[in-house]
């Protein structure tokens, strides 16, 4: 069950199945601290992909702190999305929301697919993710592309790399993550020169 409750500072916050998605005292300050604590955040990415819409305050804070970045939010629960829209409306107009219950279908979103062609950071809004850990873990893996299945999905969206990589490459163990060395070993004989140079240069950084 979804409800709106008023925090002590007067802002509305969401409560889903009895669980608060934001601070009931000062959600704005909480959002600000959340942004500050994101160690992977910096200004050199084009897109910030956020897992979980929460009560929307962390998204507002991201828009404020990173106006040059695109913000994309993946939220499984349509009800939460609707509430966030009601609460913030146009102030979150620049945030792209993706609502799909099938994690692998998330990549079908055109804006996300385009965003994946440039550096991006994945941020997790913990209270939202706790609602469906399995779903968000899968989306997370998909966006990182470090596992074989996720990498294959990711590469399908990359025309530049799809052509350069062998369809079936060096095998990776079940629990093993992919690395730059795996990618280099999968370079096709007729791979594009630019892709080849980029991957070989990166390989030199981890030797």
């Amino acid at each position, binding site marked *: 069950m979804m409800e709106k409750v008023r925090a002590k500072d007067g802002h509305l916050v969401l409560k889903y199945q009895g669980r608060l998605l934001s601070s009931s005292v000062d959600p704005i300050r909480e959002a600000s601290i959340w942004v500050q604590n994101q160690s992977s955040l910096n200004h050199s990415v084009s897109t910030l992909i956020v897992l979980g819409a929460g009560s929307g305050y962390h998204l507002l804070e991201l828009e404020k702190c990173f106006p040059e970045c695109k913000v994309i939010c993946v939220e499984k629960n349509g009800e939460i999305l609707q509430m966030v829209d009601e609460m913030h409306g146009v102030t979150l107009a620049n945030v792209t929301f993706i609502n799909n219950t099938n994690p692998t279908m998330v990549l079908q979103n055109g804006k996300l697919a385009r965003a994946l*062609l440039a550096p991006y950071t994945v941020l997790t809004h913990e209270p939202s993710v706790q609602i469906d850990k399995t779903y968000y873990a899968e989306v997370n893996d998909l966006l990182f*592309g470090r596992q074989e299945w996720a990498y294959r999905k990711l590469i399908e969206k990359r025309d530049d790399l799809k052509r350069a990589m062998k369809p079936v490459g060096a095998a990776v163990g079940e629990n093993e993550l992919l690395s730059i060395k795996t990618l280099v070993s999968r370079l096709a004989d007729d*791979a594009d*020169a630019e892709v080849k140079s980029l*991957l070989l240069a990166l390989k030199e950084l981890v030797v």
Partner: protein
Amino acid sequence: MKILVVSLLRLGDVILTAPIIQGLSKKYPNAQIDLLINKQFEKVKFLFPEINEFHFFDRQTLQDALVHPHRPILESFDRLKLFMKSISGGQYDLVINLTQNRLSGHLMDLIDAKEKIGMLIKQPAGEVSFGSTWFKYVNDIAAAGAKSIFHYTDAFRFACAVEQNGYRFNPTSKQNVKPNGVQKILIQTQTSDAKKNMDLSILQEAMALYAKAHKNVCYRILSAKGESGPVLSLVENLKNQNIDAEIAELDLPEVLSECFSSNLLVTTDTSIKHLAAGTSIPILEIALGSSDPRKTGVYKEGSYIIQSREQCVPCDHRKVCHRSSHVCAEQIPAEFLAAMFQIAMHDDRLGAATLADEYSDQVEVMRTHFSKTGFWRADALRSTARPKVLEEWLDLAAWRFFLDKDHTKNLAPYGTESFKMKEMFDRGLVYGDRNSLRIALEQIEQTTTRSEEKVHHLISEISRRVRSGVALPHVDFVDDHMLNEIRSVELEMDLGDSVSSRVIHARGAGIRSIRLVQNALNEIFNHQQIKLKLVRTLKTQMTEYI
């Protein structure tokens, strides 16, 4: 004209781009010169007023994204792609890669430019090219362990055809004042490589000896901020002997300022050495471990370098020291080191030569200078080293002739080159005594003739084998016997493994690969021929002169 210089190694290497950049700036006064360096060395910007724009390669961010499991697998790929696009957007006319490694070779392929020199790995075939005989020389000869080699800065300078001996940094605004009557000596003992660090007990003894023999000596032990731990006890012990010593935790601009206001820098192989070489301070370099002064010694006239004469020096920087103790550092006597402080401070050549002979069983003493023939040398000063020093001069002069293709000119300037050398000998540099010089030249002529014949024999034999086995795709053109012959020639000529390393590549690989070996031998043969001509011209000039 837009020029991009690429230097993606360590701080010292970046500082050593100064003579190239200053030379390029003089050669092309209207050119826009940009510099690509590792982001961690942003702090060197103040040293390069000639640079229009700096590009910073963010190695750390790329590496972090590559190895961190919670970062997208393609993040580094996309970051690097964007970065290289922004570099190519500079629309450079000339890109010069002063980094001889595979990373820079791949990056060079990603930069659009009209002309590129320095290592380039061209995809999709992965062919390595250098765009200059000089960069090829650094890769094939200098890096292969040859003994008579050019300072890397000279090789790069010649590749860029810039005339610039040494370099000069501008004093920083907060210039320190040289105190009157006080000898201020800067000491840099620690490096990032423990094998290059000084033995602190020997250093302490030398500093104490020198301070007792001279009045008003003040030592400043340089240290990066927050890294003075290892030298604390050194300073404490000196203070206990009433010697004026203190730790100076300084950043680069502060060190530069100190160099302009001090009397001597005693240093191991560090970036501080290269920084100081752009100032007026006399320098005493202590080359330990893998430090190889021939390649990266202090690039300045009138500096002194001391190095242990242990067989293992210089060692391979990638390997741990196999000795039971740090012999190359322990072998430098304290009283000798103290005497060298005085010699280096006053550029006392005669004193240095005397000391070099006195301690010749333990230590090599070298003095640096820019010769009339146009290159930097650190010549050993002990008298027994003279024939070797002379041979090295001739080797380098011949390499320069060959690499600049002077020998192919209609009127090859052998006479001019040997005349420049003769002038140096007349000034007592390299060789003092004319008769022993003549004898040494005779000997060099004989050994060079022998070497030339041996190389010629190898070339002929390989050609014969290639002709008779050309139809066989997987044949060993070079068998073990011939490989041994090649190794013996390399050893005799101090060429490292510049040819044999290619033989191993070529074995069983057929006709195409053997061409690499033939080319290497032909280069060496040409070099020996040029050297012979120089020796003979020099001999004639010496006779005419007498």
